[in-house]
């Protein structure tokens, strides 16, 4: 029993960071009032570019390249939705389509249809003193990014709720006109949030190709970006809420895989597809119960026009 728990904890900690980073990216962008349904695409370019970069440089550096790539794609989103006030959902979906088709094309043109050549995985850290403790042992032997994913939501919470910058970011998602009245740049704040969000989504993607796998595969990130979006809504647009939701989704996934390998008989009773659908179903049910208006940023999805009121 303890062994099963330990295995579950270990695989959750391995899989969760990608989702946590992307969800935090979503929170950042959406708290500033810009819908980001392009998380999937930003994760994809992050994963792809990190894997490609890792072929010719140390993997930790390549992760940085993945972050820059995510930020680059987010810049397109920002340019269309902030500078040109395009529909943010349209722009986000367009980014997803381009990243999906472009990634497939480049992968085939440069390497093989299935994936890039294998790369050096991110080094795993051995936490001293945990090796002998049951269950807690699962906390050791993860890449550094896993520990960052555990700490970042709290940093984010502090930043968003206890600093002037955080206050401005939240305000620009609620009442951009009030922020403009204070002489602050609405566009500037939103640009920062969108590009920062893209960087985090790119990091989430990079985790997939450099830590979870050791290459970029055709189907990476396979819907994780949309799941991150669900985590943002499920977590009511807060860093800690999104973190909890992402962790919950990852645990559910680990549970499904764990069950499939350790107790195959159970999957005859609970179908695998039902377990897969569970996080989305739960999100839907929660949304039904609580309604959405209560927690979404008030100006979410509305382009800012100085003249409008």
């Amino acid at each position: 029993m303890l062994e099963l728990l330990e295995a579950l904890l270990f695989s959750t900690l391995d899989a969760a960071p990608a989702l946590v980073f992307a969800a935090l990216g979503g929170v950042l962008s959406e708290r500033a009032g810009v819908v980001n349904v392009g998380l999937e695409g930003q994760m994809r370019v992050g994963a792809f570019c990190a894997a490609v970069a890792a072929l010719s440089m140390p993997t930790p550096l390549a992760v940085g390249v993945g972050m820059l790539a995510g930020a680059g794609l987010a810049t397109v989103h920002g340019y269309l939705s902030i500078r040109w006030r395009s529909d943010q959902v349209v722009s986000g979906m367009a980014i997803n389509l381009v990243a999906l088709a472009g990634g497939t094309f480049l992968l085939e043109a440069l390497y093989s249809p299935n994936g890039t050549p294998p790369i050096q995985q991110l080094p795993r850290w051995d936490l001293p003193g945990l090796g002998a403790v049951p269950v807690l042992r699962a906390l050791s032997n993860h890449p550094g990014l896993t520990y960052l994913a555990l700490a970042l939501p709290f940093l984010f919470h502090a930043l968003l709720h206890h600093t002037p910058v955080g206050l401005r970011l939240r305000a620009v998602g609620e009442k951009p006109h009030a922020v403009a009245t204070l002489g602050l740049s609405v566009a500037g704040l939103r640009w920062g949030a969108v590009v920062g969000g893209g960087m985090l989504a790119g990091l989430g993607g990079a985790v997939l190709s450099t830590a979870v796998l050791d290459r970029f595969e055709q189907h990476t990130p396979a819907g994780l970006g949309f799941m991150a979006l669900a985590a943002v809504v499920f977590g009511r647009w807060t860093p800690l809420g999104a973190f909890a939701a992402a962790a919950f989704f990852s645990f559910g996934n680990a549970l499904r895989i764990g069950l499939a390998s350790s107790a195959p008989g159970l999957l005859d009773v609970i179908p695998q597809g039902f377990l897969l659908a569970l996080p989305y179903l739960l999100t839907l049910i929660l949304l039904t119960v609580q309604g959405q208006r209560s927690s979404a940023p008030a100006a979410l999805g509305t382009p800012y026009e100085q003249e409008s009121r």
Partner: protein
Amino acid sequence: MGERWRSAIPSVLSVLLALGVCWGAIALTRDAEVAAEAYLQMLYGGLGQWPRYLETGDVGTLTRPLGEAAIKAALLLLTGLSVAVAFKAGLFNIGAQGQMLLGALVAALVGAHMSLPSALHVPLALLAAAAAGAVWALIAAALKLLRGVHEVITTIMLNWVAVSLVDNWLAVGPLRAAVSGGHSISGTAEIHPSAHLPRLLGDLSRLNLGFLLALLVALLVWVGLFRTRRGFETRAAGLGAEAARTAGIPVKQRTAEAMGLAGALAGLAGALLVLGTEFRYPGSLGAPYGFDGIAIALIGNSHPLGVTLSALFFGILRAGGTRMQLLGVHKSFPELIQGLALLFVAGRLVWLTLLRKRRAVPASTEVPRA
């Protein structure tokens, strides 16, 4: 040239720009000759191999590619209309994929598990598929109208619920076809021949009644949206819910109807796939037709005519895309063109500003100088 045609300019320019950028992408990764040859092959694959035909006189070299293009176009047209109808009512239907999936599943079940004469079987399967898609879409409509949950979130969630439940459970589990003749097949049981959509050209191509059906549906959607009172009210609700409500339009009702219709159209697309070409619900639906619908709808400016043209165009590219593989260019290449075109369309305001500037220049020269 009226205002209505001018509104199509950004879409046309976007598609052209996307074609140009993608040509450049092949030219850079391979060389310019390969790029030119690939585009030629794409046209042959979508519009027929005319040189081969003139040489050999084999009609099949024309009808087969055209038929494939028509099949692809019919699916894109229906999912595109689905997104466009919702858009006209002020809704963003990202859930066409899930709605189509359920439509396909129900069409496969009706096709396989009922025995009826063809004249009844096909319409029944189509109706059942449309109803299934509508129900799936109405969940999102209900959540929006009753609980204020944005349909973008609910339809994305409903997509994943549909994919998980159908592709990862029903189609490979309880509804999987019984193993026959020693080799197992993926997906549900094959539908009865009485549920097949009739082929229009016999063995010359896979072109079937579904193409005409899709065109007819597009015409009906146009009439419904632009020539009926109900359609006017729906569009009014989409343009401004507050104003429409003040004018006495039952906004909630029109919104729900539009979402139901959107789901029905996507469900119909699923039925066309199953009854026209697959003849069973395959192990998984495969291509993301529902997401393509978003691109088709927006490139077509959410107008039934524009959506039809855009679906026909990308149907041709899609059918031709498979031929590009002969040159080692990935068959998903047309999707890249489509994605980029959508990205450029998303910058509609950029195009309009550029166009206005160009028109403003000659106008300013007419200003009399002092």
